[in-house]
């Protein structure tokens, strides 16, 4: 091999695992993340434009799921399937807020696999910074959330619900929900690419998950359900967000920080797995 001094960067591809050169791996990850911003933005714009250009209901789809969940909870409460302690604000507004915040998690969870499955044809044909797909997925979640926020504002105004100045800090737990959903979504990508049923199973699972969270009920629910809600990692993030919005000082913040911290660590691990697994999967799913 001729060795000449050129300023072009050299890339080497060998059979051995890239975990054997962790510093190179980290450098590549950082480099690709930076390169992914432009592409991620483009993919995001592409998918949003295409989706809303093609559907009859357009942007309405963003608000549809929380509306449905809210109505379900209102109906259940009024037929007294469960009892709810007074939470100091109108119930519909309370539920709507919880649902919308919860959907940040759900959308973030579904997004990575959805975007990757839609982009299979690019993935199998071009070598490109794959972090872009995750970024574009996050973009879609945020976009959908901002539409839902409009709905929430309308509901709050209608029900004279009070929003405190502390609501600004709700961004932090919401970010936590976003990151946690993304983390789980990314971890599922390798399996989800190899086996088609994972994506649909995920959708079914998340539609039922809302009942294991304090969206429709207050935290002080008893029995088995209460226990499950308590150990659900979504709960601390959700409760903190809601508390901040209505101006209540968050109580025990320890679970919140633990969940947030673990999420960040697992997100990083998920990113590494994603990077290492994808070339192996790509060669097997399509030519």
């Amino acid at each position: 091999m001729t060795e000449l001094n050129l300023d072009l960067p050299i890339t080497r591809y060998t059979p051995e695992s890239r975990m054997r050169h962790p510093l190179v791996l980290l450098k590549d990850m950082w480099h690709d993340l930076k390169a992914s911003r432009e592409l991620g933005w483009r993919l995001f714009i592409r998918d949003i434009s295409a989706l809303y250009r093609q559907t009859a209901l357009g942007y309405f789809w963003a608000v549809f799921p929380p509306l449905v969940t809210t109505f379900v909870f209102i109906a259940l409460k009024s037929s007294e399937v469960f009892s709810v302690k007074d939470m100091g604000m109108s119930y519909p507004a309370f539920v709507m807020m919880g649902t919308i915040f919860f959907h940040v998690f759900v959308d973030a969870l579904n997004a990575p696999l959805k975007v990757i499955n839609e982009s299979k044809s690019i993935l199998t044909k071009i070598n490109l910074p794959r972090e872009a797909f995750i970024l574009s997925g996050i973009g879609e979640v945020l976009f959908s959330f901002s539409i839902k926020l409009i709905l929430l504002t309308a509901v709050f105004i209608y029900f004279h619900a009070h929003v405190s100045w502390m609501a600004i800090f709700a961004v932090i737990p919401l970010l936590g929900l976003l990151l946690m959903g993304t983390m789980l979504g990314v971890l599922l990508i390798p399996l989800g690419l190899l086996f088609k049923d994972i994506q649909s199973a995920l959708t079914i699972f998340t539609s039922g998950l809302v009942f294991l969270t304090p969206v429709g009920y207050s935290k002080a629910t008893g029995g088995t359900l209460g226990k499950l809600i308590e150990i659900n990692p979504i709960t601390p993030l959700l409760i903190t967000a809601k508390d901040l919005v209505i101006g209540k000082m968050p109580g025990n913040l320890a679970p919140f920080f633990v969940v947030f911290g673990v999420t960040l660590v697992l997100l990083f691990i998920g990113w590494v797995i994603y990077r290492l697994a994808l070339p192996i999967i790509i060669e097997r799913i399509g030519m």
Partner: protein
Amino acid sequence: MVETLVTLNNVSKKFCRRLRRSLWYGILDIFAELLGSKRANVKLRKEEFWALKDINFELKKGELVGLIGANGAGKTTLLKLMSGLIKPDKGEIAIRGKIQALIALGAGFNPILTGRENIYINGAVLGFTRREVDALMKDILEFSEMEEFVDMPVQSYSSGMHVRLGFAVAVNLKPDILIVDEVLAVGDASFRRKARNKMMELLHSGISVIFVSHNMALISSLTSRCIYLDRGRVVAIGPSDEVTSLYLSDSIKRTKEAASHMKNMWMEAAYLTIPEVFGMDRVGLIDGEGREVGEFRTFDDIIVVFEMDFRQKLEKVLLAMTIRDQVDDVVVSSSKLSMNEKPNEGKVRVECRMVKNRFREGNYNIGFYVSDFEGGSFYKSHNVGSFTILADMRLIRHQDSTQGFVVMDANWEVKQ
């Protein structure tokens, strides 16, 4: 010394035949990867095969290299390895610079969006910022001749427009190495010419190109070196003339084997015979020197020998011969009529001399038909014999034309 841009050292790649097992191996491989496996000595697991084996190759700056081989030989796999899309199972690939792989045109195109929006996406997919794409937008639109249509949704484009747009984007963003995979086979003649000229332009500016094609005339006229792959192995790497010749003669042998197998199946017997009147004893082929051969070159004389037996005396005899190519199209035909003269009775030997044949390289079948010119047929066969015209690359390049059913013996003279 010319710089080397891509080096492949003993590169091998394996695949699995069965999907489910392949997915299972995928999971195992992911674990091996996460656990930092060295993968020093990779062997074939059950149902696996080597899609590429022991490939050694160097691509230099400003070089145009051809990549040829039958379908399934491993060309696309090799391209994917070189662009870093998949990892090798053995060996090492070193790449200096950025590779633009045209393995798929219009990658990332969303049909609902307009051409312009898709240009930005395609540019981003290939690693360019919006500003860089903006600077090149004019060139892209001019090259693709799509100024009028660029703001319409891509789903309303014809497939030719797709190709033009995708190619224009990929080619105007100047990569260090460009891989062109069958792309120039699509699109109309004027676009193909433009695409070719653009490639030559890129070459002169020092960009290396790997060109994959089934068109041997194009490969040998454009490229200096060529790699010939067969079933995952390198058959030859060398000057394009020689390597493409080798490929052509190999593929003729292959189709001949396939054809002879098929010949036995349905065409051996004549499909109409009246044995009381006529019988065919033997059909053979000889060359200009009277030797029995099965292979000829273009412009040779080909003599077909028919040894027939007229078991009844006939007044009028019409002999007709057709020469059909590999897809059963009749390339040429000829006939002889005899009235009250030979050949019309007893054992006769008839020779048909095709003077300075004009056939292209390939395999041909001889059809033969005997009738009495009044509607009565005594013998019909589409395949009484066959012959091969050998490839002659110098000839083909000299003529510089791969079109047409036959070759033409033309003289070009400059008057004045």
